């Protein structure tokens, strides 16, 4: 009898010890920042994302549920197998609890799928593929910031309302460019606009002159650039050389432009360009305060992605605290119940397919005269509400969504 009691007591002690351990795995909350530290997206995410994540940890107080928080970072070199190897090592060997950032959509999708299989939350702030929350959606994968649909819709809607009815697309000839063009033309047609033509250019084109002249002579009101990174920069530069978009008859819009691209182009070249982004540092007091602190550490103004990483880490930590554990399922459920409020977004919320619903902004590049400083690049001209920006749940192809 006594023996039995001792055994039971021992078992109870063991169970309690287990329970206490299960709250925070490994007695530390580890957050992995995975991105390409070099290459085309290094300015948009890169080391700045790690700085932003550390700022979030500090603002949260450095500890969650009495346990320390640790940030680890890795460079996926824009290769999905490298990214997946790092992520798997982080999760299985180092006990990383959440992975954020992940520019390059092939890496984003691969890591999201892998992490979900292992019950770990991913918060993708940097890649734009709508596949993340559609065909490739997963129970633990969160698409935290912009996607290509929001960019296309956000640009098309206000410009058509302002009278830009006739559209011409200059599209990068690969899947990303095609999907941007498709999304935008759909909106243009739905809103009573007209697509007067489109041209496809190969990836990494250096000479856009023939494409641009055809676009100029098409009689379109709007020339939309459905391309990315260096292609966007080159096409905008050359359009400026031809004076396209300066005559008041035609305007150029970029379907994927970051403020760091504008910085690279310079205001004299990029002025007047309209594009959509999820955040800009000079929107209000809070964002300016964040930008100031960020710039002290990183020597550049934060991009929308840096702000999104900051916000993702902060909201994740809030969810861990509210859920009382860092166990993936509980935290995911908690995130689904919360409203996200910080300097990045107001009253944003997480949908069941993993999409975070937040407002987007139409911006326009300032002229050199309007600009008051090195980083004073764009002005926000319109807000696009979340329910208009993102693909509605009824059209979602995500298998997790009950139709």
């Amino acid at each position, binding site marked *: 009898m006594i023996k039995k009691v001792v055994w039971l007591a021992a078992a109870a002690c063991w169970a309690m010890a287990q329970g206490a351990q299960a709250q925070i795995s490994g007695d530390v909350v580890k957050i992995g920042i995975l991105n390409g*530290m*070099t*290459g085309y997206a290094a300015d948009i995410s890169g080391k700045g994302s790690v700085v932003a994540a550390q700022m979030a940890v500090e603002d949260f107080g450095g500890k969650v549920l009495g346990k320390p928080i640790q940030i680890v970072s*890795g*460079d996926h*070199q824009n*290769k*999905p*197998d*490298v990214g*997946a*190897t*790092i992520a*798997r*090592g982080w999760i*299985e*060997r180092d006990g990383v609890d959440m992975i954020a950032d992940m520019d390059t*959509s*092939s890496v984003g*999708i*691969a890591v999201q*799928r*892998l992490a979900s*299989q292992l019950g770990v939350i991913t918060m993708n702030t940097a890649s734009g*593929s709508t*596949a993340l929350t559609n065909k*490739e959606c997963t129970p633990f994968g969160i698409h935290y910031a912009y996607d290509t649909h929001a960019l296309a819709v956000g640009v098309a809607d206000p410009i058509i309302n302002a009278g830009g009815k006739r559209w011409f697309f200059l599209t990068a*000839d*690969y*899947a*990303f460019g*095609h999907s941007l063009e498709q999304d935008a033309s759909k909106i243009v047609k739905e809103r009573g606009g007209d697509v007067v033509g489109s041209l496809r250019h190969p*990836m990494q084109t250096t000479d856009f002159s023939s494409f641009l002249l055809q676009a100029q002579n098409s009689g379109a009101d709007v020339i939309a650039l459905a391309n990315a990174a260096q292609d966007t920069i080159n096409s905008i530069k050359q359009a400026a050389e031809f004076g396209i978009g300066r005559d008041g008859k035609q305007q150029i819009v970029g379907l994927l432009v970051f403020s760091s691209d504008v910085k690279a182009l310079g205001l004299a070249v990029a002025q007047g360009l309209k594009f959509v982004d999820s955040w800009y540092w000079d929107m209000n007091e809070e964002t300016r305060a964040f930008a100031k602190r960020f710039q002290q550490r990183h020597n550049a103004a934060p991009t929308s992605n840096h702000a999104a990483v900051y916000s993702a880490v902060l909201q994740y930590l809030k969810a861990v605290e509210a859920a009382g554990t860092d166990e993936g399922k509980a935290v995911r459920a908690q995130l689904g119940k919360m409203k996200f409020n910080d300097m990045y977004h107001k009253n944003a919320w997480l949908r069941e397919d993993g999409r975070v619903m937040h407002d987007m902004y139409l911006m326009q590049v300032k002229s050199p005269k309007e600009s008051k400083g090195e980083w004073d690049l764009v002005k926000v001209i319109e807000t696009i509400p979340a329910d208009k920006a993102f693909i509605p749940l009824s059209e979602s192809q995500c298998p997790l969504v009950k139709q």
Partner: protein
Amino acid sequence: MTRKQWFLLLGLGVVAPFVLYPVFVMKMLCFALFACAFNLLLGYTGLLSFGHAAFFGGAAYVAGYAVKSWGVPPEIGILIGLGVGAILGAAVGALAIRRQGIYFAMVTLALAQIVYFVAVKAPFTGGEDGLQGIPRGRLFGIVDLNDTMNMYYFVLAIFLLAFWSIARIIDSPFGQVLKAIRENEARALSLGYDVDRFKLLAFVLSAALAGLAGATKALVFQFASLTDVHWTTSGEVVLMTLLGGVGTLFGPMVGAFTVVALHSELSALGSWVTVIIGATFIVCVLVFRRGIVGELQALAQRHFWGRREANEAELAQIEQGSKSKP
């Protein structure tokens, strides 16, 4: 290859996942197999292909698609990868072997770029998103490959089987003819060997094994991406083979392990990885031309068998051979 060496290799393979990270070892094995397949062509036939990523990546895509969309079991998927590698190899090889040296390399590169272009454009590959979410499934319907250890031993078995095949091919009379072609094509021709047929067969075998490696990698990582078919992958396999020791049995394996380990260990340095690997390559070419394994073998011979003169003669022969071939 001696029995002792086989047991050593098997022993190392069995123990490795307990010491190192299993997925990392699997990646090493896939690239080692790829490099060994490449070595069959460069090291033993003397043909420098600059388009092997096409077979590696092409097989990864088709095998991945077959497993994901047609629901074929993993072992069939891998065989499909082998087949795709062989078919692509036959097509590319038939065109490329008509030319020698740099022209051969350029033809293979050009044809590989076509495969890359298809991977970018074809609807089933997912473009730059890659073909994602390939299920590992159950081996022969019994063994669950989602378990990392099961997957590891499956990959190890494939690797050892393929490695054994390569060793057999090299030691066979066929392999001897390949070496003869490498040393002196005109002489092999004058001895009555149909050189083009031998070259084509070597090309197809090499491409098929590269396809096997690609399909296995697609199952391990559960995706195929543009990196797999990109020309930099073709370049990387040349680097692995030369660094490890071209024309040695173990060289490509050692080279692949070294390069994969460098990539992973130095990943924190970002773009410096490329610089460091490039510098390593230059040092290799300048200082130890026979590669890691080649130099070790030469060293062993020099010290244990006192075959210094023979060895010098051999090195001179290699240098002369490489001079006569562009």
